[in-house]
């Protein structure tokens, strides 16, 4: 019966049934025909179970981080951060690409969702890319890749969901993706410069002297200071042990609204109302998906799906590293078909028992799933971030594919390989700060 349930899920997703409803459809099959004797499961316990799972304060952080991201975008807070980063590398060839990448990392660390990061940074940076003569395919591919840094630089929604589903400490999951995130930042910047090596059309700003840089730094720091305080409050609050993730997200909203209204004067009551509703819609869409996956994963566990999958993997090889390799292939394929959050909500409950049985560290798996979902978001056919970037940057998909493939080959795959085969890379920070065992 479990195979039919999986088939229903895959078919529904392919036909385009909304992801939460696809989860419901698969669950409905098991409600009627699941169980050892095919008599199904009690439906009356399903919604209460989902409710109980969702009845969690840490999950509220997702809603509030999304709201904070929306306010940052509308309140011109992101713009000030980008101008600030521009002081340091804006006068290099390909400097704007580096500015965009680092800005995505900073903005992504606050709003925690790839598409929110992309829309926040992209709306500001794409006109600048055009003005500086960047190839539009490259600029759109670069932004698509860089916006995924929000999935790796904490805090972010994907890892909160992962921690919630698998019962792992959120902070440890956050720390596990920091080093892979920094590696991706570095590699994106390098590949960007490499792709521009023969390009003569890109305008390079005049080299700034140290004095000019200091003057610019002074003026931009002054205007960016209220914006810079936001990551300081969020990251400092969480890692300083002053606030929980949920409290930090609420503080981010409470801080960003007056900054947007009174300091940058880009927000008023009307668009604050609008941005909070838009964030609520995004939140609602994600949370219904989580509710449905909570119900579905319970049924999948009752059907012993992890063991079924493990047996399938073991039929090919008994070696844990080979199985881990297959799990990665499985995650990449899922990422090619679904968005990041859907992959995490579906894969985590199924794969975590397998990971534990194989003897891998669950925090290591958090880093693996983080990098994998990033990779999946820019790998067609379902590459939502890539398509959105193309739309924002007015770049046709065929122009984006070549540079995007270079970013995948030279940034994401090497980082994924390092994360998978060298667990200490992702476990170093959780071990140092939280005492997570190797």
């Amino acid at each position: 019966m479990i195979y039919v349930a999986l088939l229903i899920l895959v078919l529904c997703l392919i036909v385009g049934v909304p992801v939460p409803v696809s989860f419901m459809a698969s669950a409905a099959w098991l409600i009627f025909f699941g169980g050892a004797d095919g008599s199904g499961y009690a439906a009356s316990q399903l919604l209460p179970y989902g409710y109980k799972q969702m009845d969690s304060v840490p999950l509220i952080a997702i809603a509030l981080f999304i709201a904070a991201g929306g306010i940052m975008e509308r309140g011109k807070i992101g713009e000030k951060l980008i101008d600030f980063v521009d002081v340091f590398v804006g006068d290099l060839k390909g400097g704007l690409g580096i500015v965009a990448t680092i800005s995505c990392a900073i903005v992504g660390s606050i709003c925690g969702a790839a598409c929110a990061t992309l829309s926040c940074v992209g709306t500001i940076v794409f006109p600048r890319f055009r003005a500086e003569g960047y190839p539009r395919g490259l600029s759109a591919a670069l932004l698509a890749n860089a916006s995924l840094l929000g999935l790796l630089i904490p805090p972010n929604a994907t890892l909160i969901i992962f921690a919630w589903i698998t019962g792992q400490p959120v902070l440890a999951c956050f720390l596990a993706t920091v080093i892979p995130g920094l590696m991706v930042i570095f590699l994106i910047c390098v590949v960007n410069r490499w792709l521009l090596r023969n390009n003569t059309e890109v305008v390079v700003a005049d080299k700034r002297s140290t004095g000019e840089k200091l003057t610019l730094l002074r003026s931009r720091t002054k205007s960016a200071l209220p914006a810079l305080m936001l990551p300081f409050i969020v990251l400092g609050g969480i890692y300083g042990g002053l606030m929980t993730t949920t409290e930090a997200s609420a503080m981010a909203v409470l801080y960003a609204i007056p900054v947007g209204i009174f300091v940058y004067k880009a927000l008023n009551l009307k668009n604050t109302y609008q941005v909070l509703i838009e964030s609520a819609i995004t939140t609602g869409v994600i949370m219904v998906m989580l509710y449905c996956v909570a119900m579905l994963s319970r049924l999948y566990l009752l059907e012993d799906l992890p063991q079924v999958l493990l047996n399938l993997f073991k039929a090919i090889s008994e070696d844990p590293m080979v199985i881990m390799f297959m799990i990665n292939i499985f995650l990449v394929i899922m990422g090619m078909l679904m968005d990041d959050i859907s992959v995490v909500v579906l894969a985590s409950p199924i794969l975590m028992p397998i990971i534990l049985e194989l003897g891998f560290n669950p925090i290591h798996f958090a880093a693996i799933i983080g990098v994998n979902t990033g990779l999946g978001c820019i790998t067609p056919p379902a590459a939502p971030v890539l398509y959105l970037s193309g739309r924002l940057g007015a770049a046709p998909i065929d122009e984006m594919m070549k540079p995007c493939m270079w970013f995948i080959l030279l940034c994401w795959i090497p980082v994924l390989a390092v994360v998978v085969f060298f667990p200490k890379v992702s476990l170093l920070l959780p071990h140092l700060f939280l005492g997570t065992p190797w």
Partner: protein
Amino acid sequence: MSENQDKKNSPQCKIDCLPSEMILASTPKNFFDTIVINSFSFICFSTSIILTLIICAAAFFRYILNGDLTGYEEWVKIFAFWLYFSGAAIGAYNRTHVSADLVQAYVADGKLKDFLVFLKDLITVGVCLLFAWYGLKFFEFGFMGPLGSFSDPMGPRIAVPTTNVWRISLWVGYLSVFLGLIFMLYYFARDLISSTRLLLGRKNK
């Protein structure tokens, strides 16, 4: 190639967090939708603000005043559920629920595509109908208690589930789930009618 043509040629994919100009709630066209969407929008806005304020107040009490907002989590969770399911209902109205949408992107316009869209909508409505029914049962359980005591409106309510500290009846939260599912069903049914008309060759727009 013009910008518009480029945009048209790019595959589309619904995603978790669209930029504001794409996700913005479109203006409802009829009176019923206006009432429903405005009500849910108001709930979304007020719960977002309330959640922010309560959580910040709790942090302030804990770290600055060394005090405690007893049982604040009970209120926060109920507001959160109303936020989630109101947002989900508006998401169904706006058609922003996450889907892979490979059909939209890769199947050429024509009868096959119309049929697949119709099939998608039919499955969506059927499954949603089933879960809306479960949602009703869930709400009834919270409202009447396991013994169904509220079937006698004048009688005492026995064993109605409540929270531990503030004794808030749990049906307040369950109602959000039920209403969210009902209005998601309603807007998915609207899409089904539209795709049926398209399949049968009648112009809908």
